[in-house]
């Protein structure tokens, strides 16, 4: 079906494209095959704009803007690959790595981790900040899944998918700033949760090895973030996309 939304002219790194009014910069870029790296964004879920990986420069202002939470406007000149943005992305990633305990070598998601992929993509080969090495306890109380807060980057995908798609709202963020952490229900062990339906959507969308199936060893985790787009489309349009189409 042809899209009838009104269009605007924009450019990515000097190349002209057509955007739809109301569309975000990130959506527009992806539709046109232009890469803007992102972490917390997931198609099918609401926009959170928290990770700041997808920030871009817009010609008329010095301020960096998150591509996922910025709508395209007429004659918008968007820059993605600039030295400033590359350095910024790297810094954000380094801070994420420094904040938790990310040990790829022993992680269930090693080789299948969006954070790891992003570090490779961004050329982040070391961390300049002091590792915080927080002491965080693994929650293995759920019969099917394991939550390792050491690997959590607070992207809130699990919070959003549980609330918006499953409708259970088991997950939430507690505390603030550097003390912020992911909790289940009223900060009870996941296994004691009354509202969890064991659906596994949170595990499917986790970008790291923080949420995983029990019994998996190194590199054995399989995430399925595309599942959410399939579900979202099924609900809104009443039709199932085939996996190829969803991707």
């Amino acid at each position, binding site marked *: 079906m042809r899209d009838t939304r009104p269009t605007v002219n924009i450019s990515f790194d000097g190349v002209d494209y057509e955007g739809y009014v109301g569309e975000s910069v990130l959506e527009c870029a992806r539709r046109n095959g232009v890469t803007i790296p992102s972490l917390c964004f997931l198609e099918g879920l609401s926009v959170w704009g928290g990770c700041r990986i997808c920030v871009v420069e817009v010609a008329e202002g010095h301020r960096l803007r998150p591509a996922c939470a910025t709508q395209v406007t007429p004659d918008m000149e968007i820059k993605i690959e600039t030295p400033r943005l590359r350095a910024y992305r790297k810094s954000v990633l380094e801070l994420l790595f420094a904040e938790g305990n990310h040990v790829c*070598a*022993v992680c*269930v998601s*090693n080789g299948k981790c969006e954070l790891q992929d992003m570090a490779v993509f961004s050329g982040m080969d070391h961390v300049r900040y002091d590792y915080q090495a927080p002491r965080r*306890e*693994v929650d*293995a*109380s759920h*019969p099917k899944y*394991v939550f*390792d807060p050491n690997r959590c980057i607070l992207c809130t995908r699990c919070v959003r998918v549980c609330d918006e798609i499953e409708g259970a709202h088991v997950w939430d963020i507690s505390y603030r700033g550097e003390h912020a952490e992911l909790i289940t229900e009223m900060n009870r062990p996941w*296994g004691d949760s009354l509202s969890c339906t064991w659906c596994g959507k949170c595990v499917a969308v986790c970008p790291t090895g923080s949420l995983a199936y*029990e*019994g*998996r*060893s*190194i*590199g*054995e985790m399989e995430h399925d973030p595309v599942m959410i787009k399939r579900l979202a489309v099924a609900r809104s349009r009443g039709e199932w996309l085939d996996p190829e189409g969803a991707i």
Partner: protein
Amino acid sequence: MSNTVIIDPVTRIEGHAKIALQLDEKGKVDTARFSVTEFRGFEEFCRGRPVWEMPSLTARTCGICPVSHLLASAKAGDGIMGVRIPSTAVKLRRLVNLGQIIQSHALSFFHLSSPDLLLGWDADPAIRNVFGLMAEEPELARRGIRLRGFGQSVIEAIAGRKVHSPGIVPGGIADPMTAETREWMLSGLTEAKQTAEEALELFISMLGKFEREARAFGTFPSLHLGLANDAGTWENYDGHLRFVDAEGNVAADNIDVADYRDYIGEAPRHDSYLKSPYFKPLVEDSDDVFKGVYRVGPLARLNVCKTMGSPLADEALTAYREAAGGTANSSFFYHYARLIEILASTELARELLNDDAILNPMVRATAGINHFRAVGTSEAPRGTLFHEYQVDARGLLEDVNMIIATGQNNLAMNETVLQIAREWVDGNDIPEPVLNRVEAGIRAFDPCLSCSTHAVGKMPMEVSMFDHEGTKVNEVRRG
């Protein structure tokens, strides 16, 4: 006047160990202490981690023998789950351990020890290394390197990676073997076996030259520990624990690995992070743990078994026992035993691969947490390895104890250093060949620290001599 000699390779490269020799008034060696000054703390940071993660976490203990840790850890995981893993998984685990024994022993013999054996203890240190070996014996060096490469490739083919492989997991093996992999492995075994036979022949031909070393490189009565099976064949993966004495008599047998604490004590030492394990039943006083000294590794394994379980290796074992006069008690014979184990590994690997069951796709058992405690063992190239885990009902580690092969040889390495020093050190003078022999005495055990300090074939050393009042009277450095 009594002197203390400190041989301290703690400096410059990795910082692992030091040797202290106490001389008496006549300049003769009185006592020796071998200490490891490196602290790693694996047992501490494993606490709180899921048991499923333990194989990959503990494999990081070592880059040379990670397969041993993977196996011991996965077996402890099997025990926590309470599963009997599929028979094909057992075969694949056995095969990957044979690959590991081949590669690690090849490294020890060809890369690290043969420069001493072939070029001589007194050869110029600048050429007494694997590069010198390449210049002198290029074909031997090439074959040795290829043999190690083959062992590494066996590990990669079964477990997914040469080093720190992800494919050895609680419950079995992650992926079944393909027919192509089997064919490739079978074809590679031909050269591997040939190289092992040639190396063995070469070593036997040189044995006469090393009469003094065979006598003075840690020849003393001790117990020997290894995994054993009911058939009496050489065991490297499963079975029970068996101790034999210096005459080959069984000192303790049919010990369930889960009961290892009843037989093995661990004495901490104030000057070393390496504890000194000992055979408990023989030690009444904790100050005299040497009464319970035992050795592990190739020498011990060949003393513990009746036969190797493969034709050529059994012939070699007969000749070995004749040369050793029955039970081998000279640590110099570790080299000899190691070569027989490589040969046996190539023969036994072929036997496993010729069985079509090796291709069975069922290679993994799954289960939840069914036991709070389990012990896993494997025969690492350097000796019996123990992993003991205590978990909570959710499978998170509450307590971890790992007993490493090198640690179990600690008392024996002390004794070896003492013997070598008594044989060669005289007065305050410590010439380079003497340093090299002390180092080679330790190297015969192929301890883990050798891999990190022998990258170019020479252990950095700092030897200091002190008189009885603590004044430094001599100092020798190298490396």
